[in-house]
């Protein structure tokens, strides 16, 4: 990782409060104007921040919607343990939609040697239809990726769950229009204007717990496609592939088969904030095999209904 000398020195504490206020406003609009919202919760840092914001938005009431995990079955155990504990603490309902089940019932076919990540779209859309969710809250941010940079806060999906990026609804001021036809739903992105640095700054400010794999730890990894992939039951080393033990952490937490770790000594939230402030690689470029596939990999998945 190369280090740039001009790290931002702007005081971001103030901007964190602005971002929180904006996100809380969005969450309240959703609850006020939709019948059946749901919050996507993976146990990753963005969805953890989303849960905290939801807690704040409806305080002293409880979070008035369920949370849903699209489970590829290829999870980091630390993350699933964290998910279950957090959900219990908050007293929210957890819906788990399983990619394994989609495979077993023949809704999708698993291709040998490729990740389950794209299969999640079918599982997600099936679950949205089965539960008749009309607003699906996601933690995606515009700074993650260039197709995401084009996304609205309230984003319409047609009956097939598809995104039409060439024909998005104008979105002005803080006036969010969630009207839709039967069968359509909206994806809502309250963290649209947050950056990765904001997310970590907020986690630090709020003292929010995150799964341990975000912190530097020793782990057996293999080097594959320029990424460090953890050795797990789903990702065994290939024959002849050297296994090394390295000090790493995760910048994103997703399906274990396509999420890479980064070499890092960041053992505390302060370390992580400092590291993210000077990094020269985007989180997806550094850690997501699925996004490296092509220039339009994310756009194509999003069009089909991906998160």
């Amino acid at each position: 990782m190369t280090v740039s000398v001009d790290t931002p020195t702007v005081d971001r504490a103030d901007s964190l409060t602005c971002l929180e206020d904006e996100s809380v406003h969005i969450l309240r609009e959703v609850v006020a104007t939709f019948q059946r919202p749901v919050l996507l919760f993976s146990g990753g840092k963005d969805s953890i921040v989303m849960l905290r914001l939801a807690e704040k938005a409806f305080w002293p009431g409880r979070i008035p919607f369920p949370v849903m995990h699209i489970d590829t079955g290829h999870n980091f155990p630390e993350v699933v343990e964290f998910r279950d504990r957090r959900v219990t603490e908050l007293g929210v309902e957890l819906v788990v939609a399983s990619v394994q089940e989609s495979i077993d019932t023949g809704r999708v076919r698993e291709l040998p040697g490729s990740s389950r990540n794209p299969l999640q779209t079918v599982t997600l859309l099936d679950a949205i239809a089965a539960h008749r969710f009309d607003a699906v809250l996601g933690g995606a941010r515009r700074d993650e990726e260039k197709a995401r940079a084009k996304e609205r806060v309230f984003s319409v999906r047609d009956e097939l769950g598809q995104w039409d990026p060439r024909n998005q609804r104008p979105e002005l001021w803080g006036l969010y229009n969630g009207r839709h036809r039967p069968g359509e739903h909206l994806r809502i992105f309250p963290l649209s204007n947050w950056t990765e640095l904001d997310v970590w700054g907020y986690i630090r400010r709020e003292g929010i717990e995150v799964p341990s794999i975000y912190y530097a730890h020793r782990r057996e990894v293999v080097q594959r496609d320029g990424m460090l992939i953890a050795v797990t039951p789903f990702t065994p080393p290939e024959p002849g592939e050297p296994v090394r033990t390295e000090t790493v952490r995760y910048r994103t937490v997703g399906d274990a088969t396509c999420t890479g770790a980064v070499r890092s000594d960041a053992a505390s939230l302060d370390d992580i904030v400092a590291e993210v402030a000077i990094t020269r690689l985007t989180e997806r470029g550094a850690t997501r095999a699925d996004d490296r596939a092509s220039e339009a990999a994310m756009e194509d998945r999003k069009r089909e209904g991906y998160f």
Partner: protein
Amino acid sequence: MESLLRVATAGSVDDGKSTLVGRLLHDAKAVFADQLAAVEHASRRRGYDEADLALLVDGLRAEREQGITIDVAYRYFATPRRTFVLADTPGHIQYTRNMVTGASTADVAIVLVDARKGLVEQSRRHATIAALLRVRHVVLAVNKMDLVGFAEEVFDEILADFAALAERRSVRSWSAVPISALLGDNVVDRSAATPWYAGPPLLEHLETLDIQENRELPAEDAAGEAAAEDEVRFPVQLVIRPRRHGYADFRGYAGRVEAGTLRPGTPVTVLPSGQASTVAAIDTADGPLAEAGAGRSVVVRLADDVDVSRGDLLVAGRPPSVTRELAVTVCWLAEEPLRPGGRYRIRHTTREVRAVVEPRTRLDVSTSDSAPTDTLALNDIGQVLLRTAEPLVVDPYSRHRATGALLIVDETSGATVAAGMVEGAR
């Protein structure tokens, strides 16, 4: 000076917006190594001599294929002095609705023009929209100066043209910079090719701009700005009544302070009903607040048991108008033209009401003349009269954005068909 500045780029297609944004991000070192590598790779594959920085922002396949920007892209970067949210908006007339989206939340609009062409209709349209939306400051960036030999006369002529337009459109705060987005002159670093230009390069200009809320205060309001600061506007989003032990009698109103400052003890009126009460407490999950200024999302409790629900407004200070008839300036954003007598809904603050929309006048962007009309079509700017089924609580947009802004929504499709700015109650 605010630490966060929201900037929107505007201007006609091919005037160099994407190149400028790419250049700004690149020279401000806000481009990550993997993004740059991807752009270099894609440029090489396309057979370009140099990395095309526009590919950094053109995030959609169709945009890269056609070499145009279709929808607004948001970029976030920070310099040691300021944090920026940059909305790169499309120049093509067909996608004006997306330019309006990007500009609606901007503090500053950069209007790019091609030095060889000067102000074209689309630059005039964008400047007009920026003025209507009351973007606080407009920067005229005269681009492609390299193609006119960095000639001062060319710059001065465009400046004079723009000055006349700014005057007509009441753009009160603006400035101009001669640049070459492609070569980098006066973008981040001062150019040696423009010794006649005394001002700062564009980025430094943005870093140091002190933007004032240029709110229009009525002449009779002798107390001026102070009076507007005392005007509280708090649209209620939700009533919070927890079914939870320890909060049995809790009844709070969740919302965002859109104008003014709320404090415990502030006397407020609930509109449209007109009931009066006093703020008893301002709550947040992090504890009660002694005051909540504009932008804060809070829960307000009132001292009296009054009837309040979503769509109501808590106000203090000079009252807004409660009306069912209002004059509105609109940008028409839908393919389908305005159908007089059609079924529309108005989305205003946290309220949604049915309305009849009557077209009045249409603005000719190139001549700045308004003429009577019986419809408005895609990208038209004009005046309409709204008659609503239930009262709205409004301020002129020039006085308070949040209570002066509205959307016109097609009842059947749910589409947002127009952006509206309240001129006044009828």
